[in-house]
């Protein structure tokens, strides 16, 4: 269960703490969490329930039954949520940490762990994350994926320039609603885990980024072992791949915005195309130079080993 630890994981030089999350990760987490809560509230506000159940009578919640206002807040929160989720995926793909990806046998191990905690027995040795955390990550991640994809479809469908066939709109809405239920369940389970005292250090680490060395040695020995043996993070990004991801993303955006907002946006993919072709001949790629300066290794450098 030692696999792909995160670039930033390390024992603090003072020796009392282990760095569990970088500040970047903490910010990511709270962006997803806070915008997610706002999305849940305003999403349910798209049903006429706050008026019927008189939540809008509660001081400070008068706005809750205003559909249009709810919708505006939902949109803004969705932008933050989408940003944070995509950032999370790409950042960790680049950085190489894979320790939260679910593994074979996680389901059985989760049951085992929960039994042990409830009975007060010793838990099996954990990696950086517990088996049920890895499962929860996959479940919530899948819900978020569905929500973002169907949500972006809904956004596009609402734009005056786009008309989708009725069955696409209908099923898209259906999946969005079902995924909302998934996300809500995952959210409740995630919060519920902190009822258990054993998990409290993980809760505080989401603010401080650190856990006590003693706690880590005791509960996460496999993680500590990985940190000590400096086992390589797998799949570190190289500059060639970063360039492809970046230019691909630019082309996709240009086409999307060109279709939906203004054809002038087609200039963006056109620019990327010209630059890609010219760089093949001149070996001059401004993005590549920038990324190398930032610290990306070149593929050939890794092979030289």
């Amino acid at each position: 269960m030692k696999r792909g630890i995160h670039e930033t994981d390390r024992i603090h030089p003072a020796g009392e703490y282990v760095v569990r999350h970088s500040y970047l990760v903490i910010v990511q987490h709270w962006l997803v969490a806070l915008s997610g809560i706002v999305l849940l509230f305003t999403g349910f506000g798209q049903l006429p329930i706050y008026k019927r159940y008189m939540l809008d009578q509660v001081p400070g919640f008068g706005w809750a039954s205003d559909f249009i206002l709810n919708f505006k807040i939902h949109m803004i929160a969705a932008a933050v949520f989408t940003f944070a989720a995509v950032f999370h995926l790409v950042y960790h793909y680049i950085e190489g940490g894979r320790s939260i990806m679910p593994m074979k046998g996680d389901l059985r191990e989760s049951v085992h762990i929960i039994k042990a905690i409830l009975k007060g027995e010793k838990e099996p040795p954990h990696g950086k994350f517990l088996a049920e955390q890895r499962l929860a990550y996959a479940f919530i991640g899948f819900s978020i994926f569905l929500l973002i994809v169907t949500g972006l479809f809904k956004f596009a469908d609402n734009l005056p320039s786009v008309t989708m066939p009725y069955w696409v709109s209908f099923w898209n809405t259906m999946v969005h609603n079902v995924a909302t239920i998934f996300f809500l369940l995952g959210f409740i389970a995630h919060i519920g885990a902190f009822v258990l005292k054993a998990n409290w250090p993980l809760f505080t680490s989401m603010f401080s980024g650190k856990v006590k060395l003693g706690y880590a040695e005791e509960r996460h020995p496999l993680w500590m072992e990985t940190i000590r043996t400096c086992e390589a993070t797998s799949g570190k990004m190289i500059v060639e791949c970063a360039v492809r991801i970046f230019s691909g993303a630019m082309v996709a955006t240009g086409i999307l915005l060109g279709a939906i907002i203004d054809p002038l946006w087609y200039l963006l993919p056109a620019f990327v195309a010209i630059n890609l072709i010219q760089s093949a001949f001149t070996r001059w790629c401004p993005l590549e130079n920038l990324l190398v300066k930032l610290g990306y290794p070149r593929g050939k450098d890794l092979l030289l080993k």
Partner: protein
Amino acid sequence: MSDKLSRRSFLRRVGAAVAVGSAAGIARAKPSLASAMDEPVGIVVDLTRCDGCPDVPVGRCVSACQKENEARYPEVRDEDVRDYWPQQKHEDWRPKRGLMTTLTPYNWTYVQKVNVEHEGRIHVLNIQRRCMHCDTPTCAALCPFGVIEKDVKGAVSIHEVGCMGGAKCRTVCPWHIPQRQAGVGIYLKMVPKLAGGGVMYKCDHCAPRMAEGRIPACVEGCQARLKEKAPLTFGPREDMLSLARLRAREISGYVYGDDENGGTGTFYVSPVPFEKIEAELRKRDKERFFFPKDPNPLEKPNLVAEATLVAPVAAVAGAIMAGARTIGTIGNEKEDQGPACDTATLEERSGEDQEVER
């Protein structure tokens, strides 16, 4: 302002025609691409011509609509009608089933009568009211169950099967057109005490008739009496829009429905400004249907939506930069912070280039 908007929407359409959509299997309602059969349609309502059919109890548009759609009116059992708990009310229109002077689940169009003073003259107006069939219907965009359809012909219809009767469509509709009947619909099969309120009903442009290539019943009823002098004219949306504007110019009148809520499929032509009609209607205590001038409430959120489409890309760009920083700085920090994992491996694997960069 309106020129600018239409230019913008033109650009959007041009863009829309070209791109991703086709690859993603997204069909676009575009007049030039659609066959003649699938063209969006519209109706002109010429208020200078409508006399409200004084020879009969209700306008012929209303009686024709009733006759056509009667079979689709909700049939409700008494025991299914109950309050929307914890509220102590429900909407049951059965006692007023015969009412044809307003919109109800049992009457999808009516003739609104109003006298308006304009330039020293009193105008007696008879206005056929019903769903406007917006180009970008707020109700369809915001229906939580996605059961309101805007079809290729421009008709906006509520699919009864998935409708929970929350009446949100009525709230967000600038004209508050859809009408609710309790005790009918899919919510009865779920938790009727706690969720749902019935089914919403409104004009659907006679979708079943249009599917057969026939014109809406109200137009037929109107034209049967007044022939070419009929206040209602039906045809392709763009033609109807030109007709309405032409007619308005002839009488130095006004058009309503061309720009409202981002454009609709119903064009009222009036000899008096709609602001005056609105003001007159606002004087009434119990009036339910007006002529608001508000812009489409989704216009601004849609700007945010456009920005949101950019969010994933901004995130990719940001993550690539931040990822570089993480990979790049770990090595540099090691001197101050003791051995960080993986630094050794990275150094080992990096060739001389990497060293030179540092």
